[in-house]
């Protein structure tokens, strides 16, 4: 069963701003693939859609996207991310600087996303 909810999230901090931009970009880049938003962003979205009294949404700047091994090995997402100005910084971790959020005299903050692939170790052992 698939439930759909529409919710509005306000960015009230720089971390929020980066988190929501990362989320928006990764959704746009992966929208036609079998990809799921997981981790803190997933919890934040679920709490926005289904609020729970006494639990405040905590978001971190990064986005985690769960992808299949087939998608990972195809290199499709890597190519799309690189084409949009993202750079692979370590393993499946990608970053993209956001000059418009730069504070004078500082390095521009970065969007970041981790592409997570299921481990096959348990099936092999």
């Amino acid at each position, binding site marked *: 069963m698939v439930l759909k909810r529409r919710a509005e999230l*306000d960015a*009230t*901090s*720089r*971390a*929020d*701003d*980066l*988190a929501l931009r990362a989320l928006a970009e990764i959704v746009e880049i992966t929208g036609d693939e079998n990809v799921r938003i997981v981790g*803190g962003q997933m919890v934040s979205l679920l709490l926005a859609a289904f609020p729970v009294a006494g639990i*405040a*949404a*905590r*978001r*971190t*700047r990064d986005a985690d996207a769960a992808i299949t091994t087939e998608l990972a090995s195809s290199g499709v997402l890597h190519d799309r991310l690189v084409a949009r100005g993202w750079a692979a910084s370590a393993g499946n971790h990608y970053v993209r600087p956001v000059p418009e959020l730069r*504070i004078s*005299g*500082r*390095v521009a*903050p970065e969007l970041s996303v981790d592409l997570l692939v299921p481990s096959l170790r348990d099936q092999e052992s």
Partner: protein
Amino acid sequence: MAVDSAAGVELLLDVGLYRKITGSADVEISLDGKRWSPRQVLLARHSPSPAELDRALASAAKSRYDGVYFVVGTAGSALREAAERDPRVAYAAVDRGVVSFLGTIYRTGGDHPDTTARPARVSWTRLAILRLCALRPQDPLTQSAIANRIGVSHVAVGKQIPALGGLIERTPGGWRAPDRAACWDVFMAEYPGPQGLVSYFAATGEPAEQLVRVERAVQARPQGQLIVSGDFAADFYAPWRRPARVIGYVSVEPPVERYGFAAVRAPDATVELHVPRDPTIGVMSRAAVLSNGDEERCYSDPLIAAWDLSQSTGGDVESAVAELKDRTMREILWS
């Protein structure tokens, strides 16, 4: 567990009295919220002797205080008897959850953990030098330049440099830290917190909006300034997680109740305001604007922000502190 002044002052609320924090060791106490008695807060390792009580009262009488407010683990007979007969003597016995004020004993309902009063000596100068060394990748600094940046005398700096061991080294141009990350780690391990007094408040609404209201309350006083730390300072220096609690430093507790805040216990707080004993926090804070058109805001330096952040709750605390440290090592976040 160690007793600190803040625990003794917090106890006033727990026993049903009113209190206003007016300095890092100054509090005003009231039975009814109308008539206030200014007291000097004295943290004592042991319950004071009669002679120590006399000296404390004589010292307080030279200032504008009505008397003293001792914070001890357990009150000894000299302190209990003095508080019974002399309205100038008040105390908090934190282990028992007891306050004596104007000759009357007030008790909390709950249990209090066994604690030990440990008014340890802290070298704020040494800790500030560590922060400065962690923050500055630039040229070496002379002893006078270090003193100037942390707001102490060069003699005080000279006394503390030997205590830093191999963390800083002398070069022809002055002192420099060969390993800035080590200075960060030592500071984070050894900093005892800002000490002084702290008050906790809660309100509804987004934390960012609460911060604006606290700023208004602080600025309503002449020369009032809020130094923003913790989550919000980290969001300025190295955005990582969504701020959840306002932590700030002030010289006098502002009247935030008029701006929709209620005084609460620490676990329920959304706002935490410190009147710090550490004198270097203000000197090393910096004003900045987030973007064009924004109002200027004053932030604690990145290490004080990191320490406050490290005391907060949440599964992402370690990564938020690590992000701030990483940015501090890679960029010039403070000068």
